[in-house]
Each structure stands twice: as C-alpha cells, then as structure tokens.
C-alpha cells in the first residue's frame, strides 16, 4: 500500500509532466519538489536515485519501504503505485 509519493521535477521537464498526469488520472495525490524553485534539493534527488535526471518519483509504502523510479517509466511506475 502506498503511504505517499514525492516527485522531483523541473519547470521544463516534459517527462515530469507525464508522471503527474499519470498519477492524477489514477486519482493519486503526490508532493512535488520543483528543483528550479528549490535547487538546494538537487543533491537529495541525486542521492535517492543515483542519477542526474528528473523526474525522480519516490513511492513510500505503509511499511516505510521506498521505491525509486527514475524517469517516466510506466513499466516501473504502474506496479509501484498500484
């Protein structure tokens, strides 16, 4: 079960938009960390994902385990949030 979802995004990132579109279509809420507004959190996104890219979606489950999805990857995102 999903406890909460956080997405690291930037203003110009089309793939970030798609993650948000997908979650909205599923009726799922999420927190957004916009790295253009909060550039100091870039290192947090990097540390969590190991990648220098957005979107990074952090799915926290009710047992507090986390699943990190790098990029817009429906094959990984869909099972992580369902």
């Amino acid at each position, binding site marked *: 079960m999903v406890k909460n979802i956080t997405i690291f995004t*930037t203003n*110009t*990132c*089309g*793939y*970030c*938009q*798609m993650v948000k*579109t*997908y979650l909205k*279509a599923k009726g799922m809420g999420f927190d957004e960390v916009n*790295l*253009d507004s909060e*550039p100091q959190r*870039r290192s947090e996104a*990097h540390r969590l994902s*190991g*990648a*220098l*890219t*957005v*979107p990074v979606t952090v799915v926290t489950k009710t047992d507090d385990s986390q699943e990190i999805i*790098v*990029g*817009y990857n*429906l*094959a990984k995102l869909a099972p992580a949030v369902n």
Partner: protein
Amino acid sequence: MSNDHTPQHELVIIGAGPAALSAAIYTTREDIETVLYERGVIGGLAAVTDIIDNYPGFSKGVTGLELADSLRDQAERFGAKIELGEVKSITDEGAFKRLVTDSGELLARAVLIATGSDYMRTGIPGEEKYYARGVHFCATCDGAFYRDKKLVVIGGGNSAIQETLFLTRFASHIDILVRSTLKASDVLIKEMQPFIDSAKITLHIGVTPKEIVGDENGVNKVVGINKDSKEEDFNCDGVFVFIGLKPNTAFLKSSKVELDERGFVITNQDLETAMPGVFAAGDVRSGATMQIASASGEGATAALKIREYLEGRGREIKSAPLSVTS
C-alpha cells in the same frame, strides 16, 4: 467478429505528438470516435523542447510544454481520448486492424501511426554505462543538474544547437563536438554566436567522439578524434547527445506496414501505408521534414483521408464543419 469481445474503435492513433493530436482534433470534430495511445510524452519531442520559434501563430515563440498542453486540450475538448500505454503490434483482419497493447488487445476500423522519432545514440563506449549519470538526451529534463559545470554537446544539427542554447543557462562552458559540418539553421547559428564570442561555447568541427570516460562519480571527459586523426580530450562533467533522429517503428517490423531502409514508414500520396486502413503522419513517415508545423499539417491531411476511407466502407460521417472559416 460477432463472438469477439475485443473493444472496438473507429480510429486508433498511435502516438500523441503534434501529428497525432492535430489529426485527433480533425477526426473528433467529424465525430469519428478516436483513441490515442502514447507510451512517452504527450506532445512528443516537441514537449521536451525548450522554445519553439518557428510554429506559425506564436509571434514570440512558445515553449514545447505549452504547445503540447494546448494541442492536447484542444483534442480532448472535441472528445479525443488519450490512453497512456504502448502498442506492441498491428495485424490486418480486413475491416478491422487488431492492435496488441500493453493493457490488452483492441480492434480499430482505421489506424494512424504517428509515433514520431527519438534521439539516436552514438553507440560509443561509456554512453550506456553513464546514461543519466553524466550522459543525457534531454536538456530540458537534466540541464539543471549542471549549474556552473562543464558540458560537452555531441551533434551539429538544429536540435544540438537549440539544446546547447538552453544549456547555457546552467553550464559554465560547453564544448560542441561536430563530426562533419554544422547543419543547424542560420537563425540558430546566429543566436549561438554571442556565446562563442564570449567563450562560453567552443565549437569543434571535424571531431568524432570515440569514448565517454568516467568513474564512480560520473563522467570526466569525452575522447574525440580530431580532423588530424589525433586523439583529443574534452574534460567535462556531463555530455548531452543530439546526433539525429530514429523513427519509433520497432513495433512494425513484423507487420505488413512497409518501412524504408532507415525504418521510416512508407506511405502513398494519401498517407496510407501498405496495410489498407493504416495511415502514417509526422516524423515517423518516410520523407518527413521533421518540422512540427509539417507534422501538424500531415496530421490534418491524414484525418481527412481517414474520413474518406471510413466513408468508403459505409460509415456515415456527421457533417461537422472542417474549419471555422469555411
């Protein structure tokens, strides 16, 4: 067919870029039931482009995301339905085409292939290894991670220069490696000139990238072969690759849809492929100009040809106006 409970649609459009969405605006206004399948970004490559300066109607340019949102809103306003998913194959069953998607099978009376194209890879050592950890294909997604860092851009076409101009917002310096000649438009070259004059961008013509080198922290340098056939190192923190486009047609390889030697879809003058009732438009089509305005125009043309095709097979199309000016 009567025992087949597979969902049926009048038109399935594969893709949701400018060609697909333009076609959907026309077909839905004609009351042709239309479903789009998009595996990537709604708006296609246009949506991940920073500024589009040559799309008619936007005197000050438009961001790719804004254009994509606007096209999507317009298509949805007339009833287009967009599904997020991938079409894996198409087979011809006469009056219907059977499509296998990642969420099941469906049938369509007509199909429009508008899957566009994607950036090609160089295939050099290090490119795959450091993907997203120093090697990137989307400046609007990943540029922000390179504030005050050194970058290398590989490529010399419109995309390479356009994306380099976007990256100047972040990077301290950018080396552009161009294998043969600069093929970008004069407008983009002119826009780039002040950055060359101020030494923020250095252009290297006749350099072929050989290897991307890094360590556990990411990328350190690109090794290139210059025009004197000598190795040259380009120290950097990240690499962005824009060397051309490849069509998204892998799912058509074993179908009756004919592809050219580079994998683009071959159509006749009605934009119909070798499989009757299956049309193609936009960047995926053999002979496409790879321009957003052209893709939109082809989408509209394909929509009208699809209407004719459906009418020719007994479907009554409601007479919606084709244009508010007609």
